[in-house]
């Protein structure tokens, strides 16, 4: 007799489980997986004539045979990796200071200061940089006023400007995971390191960094993915030579009406960026599950 209620309980529990799972399954299925399947299908056809399409791999071969597309991808990947590394170098001391040196109110205040720029949209932040860097902009004007240069300097429309913009937009996504992991490091471990005669550099290298590694990697993955997929910053701050892969995808879709090529680029971007992340994890010997937890 006692088996019956427990059975009912179990079905109830099951039902609850599926109901809770439903939103995420629907979300993934309808908004992520289905569109991607459609993208793959679109990318595998070629326009023969008006309203006529045929199965073909030509969109993928175009990526490998046309040096322009390939170069654009390599350039985008290299610049994204560089931006990620620079963001890490800048964000690490900041996070260390917030997590380990400050306590109480100043700690929260500084953390919020890192957050505040993200209250305005990316577009506005990028325009802010344009106002600062342009030939008739603030920095150029200040340099002239100080007499350091005798004519306007153009600092916009080049790769350095893109880099500055990218690092600025991704700073927060590095600082947050770093502060969280550094916070969880017991201060007594650092003190023990010093007590055992370790130098600051030594303590940093063998205690702090190994402990922060999952945070570093998760920050790096997020920042890398965000920069690689960024469209706004490279388009607005970049100059006439700036090529960015997402821009290429946009061009194929919107201005060339070539959805087939654009879809192929989209799929390739997904595969290649996953590959780079996987390589990064392999090199640093981190596991994806540990980094993401």
């Amino acid at each position, binding site marked *: 007799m006692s088996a019956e209620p427990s059975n009912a309980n179990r079905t109830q529990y099951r039902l609850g489980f599926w109901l809770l799972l439903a939103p995420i399954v629907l979300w993934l299925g309808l908004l992520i997986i289905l569109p991607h399947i459609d993208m793959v299908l679109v990318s595998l056809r070629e326009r023969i004539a*008006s*309203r006529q399409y045929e199965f073909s791999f030509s969109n993928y071969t175009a990526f490998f045979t046309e040096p*322009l597309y390939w*170069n*654009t991808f390599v350039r985008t990947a290299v610049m994204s990796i560089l931006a990620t590394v620079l963001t890490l170098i800048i964000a690490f001391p900041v996070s260390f200071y917030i997590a380990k040196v400050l306590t109480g109110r100043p700690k929260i205040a500084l953390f919020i200061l890192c957050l505040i720029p993200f209250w305005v949209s990316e577009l506005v932040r990028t325009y802010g940089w344009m106002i600062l860097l*342009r*030939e*008739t902009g603030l920095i150029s004007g200040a340099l002239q006023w100080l007499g350091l240069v005798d004519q306007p300097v*153009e600092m*916009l*429309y080049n790769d350095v400007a893109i880099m500055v913009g990218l690092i600025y937009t991704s700073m927060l996504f590095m600082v947050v995971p770093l502060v969280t992991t550094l916070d969880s490091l017991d201060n007594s471990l650092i003190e023990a390191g010093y007590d055992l005669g370790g130098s600051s550099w030594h303590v940093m290298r063998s205690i702090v960094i190994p402990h922060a590694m999952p945070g570093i990697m998760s920050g790096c993955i997020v920042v890398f993915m965000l920069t690689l997929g960024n469209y706004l910053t490279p*388009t607005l701050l970049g*100059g*006439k*030579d700036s*090529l960015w892969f997402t821009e290429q995808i946009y*061009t194929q*879709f*919107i*201005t*060339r*009406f*070539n*959805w087939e090529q654009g879809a192929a680029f989209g799929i390739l971007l997904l595969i290649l960026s996953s590959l780079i992340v996987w390589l990064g994890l392999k090199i640093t010997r981190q596991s994806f599950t540990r980094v993401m937890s």
Partner: protein
Amino acid sequence: MRSFRQSKYLTMVTAATAVFSVSAQAETLRLLTWGGYAPQDVVEQFEKETGIEVEITLSNNEDMISKLRATRGAGFDLAQPSQDRIVSAQADFDIYKPMDLSKIDADKIIPSMMAATRKNTEFEGEVYGVPHVWGTSGLIVNREAAGTVKDYTDLCDDSLSGSVSYRLKRPTLIGFAFALGEDPFAAYGDTEKYQAILDKVEEKLIACKSNVKAYWSGGDALLNLMRSGEVSAAMAWDAGGWKLNAENPDITFVAPTSGALGWIDTFVLPRKTKAEEAAYQWINFVMQPEIAARITESAGNFTAAKGSDEFVNDTLKAQFKASFPQADLDNINWYPPVPAGLEEMEGKVLDRVKASN
């Protein structure tokens, strides 16, 4: 009991309002157009006179086609692509619906423009477009800094290093082709010849790249570059030049010696339009001379409405006359319909120019 009745009454009122607001919302005209083509005061007057609500989405030629392609012609009730981009888009993607010209007050429209658009937007025996706003693209020049610029290729002059801007889009290719002495429009039907012209243009644009400060993409960004003096000569639309001229008399629009490029933006019905009647009403409304003049003042370009010139302010008329003496007006190269497939060839050229060093 009383409270029950009251609440019942309230529910009925709410239901009635809901029904009423639904029926009011049903009459909406979703307009896919360019900036300035549907100014606020014109929209308000239309809403007042007809009770139809107008929803405006700003766009450009490529964006309009892409948007309508994604929905197979749904989501908008009236669109405004340029006349040369209609037939190829219709052939490739089937996104438009033929116009019922009997519902258009043809006597309000300049006959020559009506005829030209009719010819250029005809596909499989049906007409798809009605002309609305027309204008040209040519050169915007700061006469003090770049007075020597008379044609597109003058942008490549050494004296203008780093202070030139143009778009990496098809008008630039066409403009440079004309300035190099070719006739790209005549080669539209001959792919091989067209490719030869494109190769020539590509070479010129790559050589010219060191002169370019930045390739502009948004009209406002270019106006800012010209305003601040960072760019002294650019390839752009006439209306932008006149707008700057009103602020700074040194800057103006110049019709290039090889001819300005003329375009006509049209009215087209998306295939799944849900407010066809409202769309025809809007077309007939904005073609009234006095309304058309207000659109001219907001867009900076003249319309195909008959007799609207009288209502346009004198500054704009004077600017137009200064930029277009009769000879230059006759010299305008009007875009013929683009055959399908050409834009792919042009795209590859634009990619290579962008990638070159």
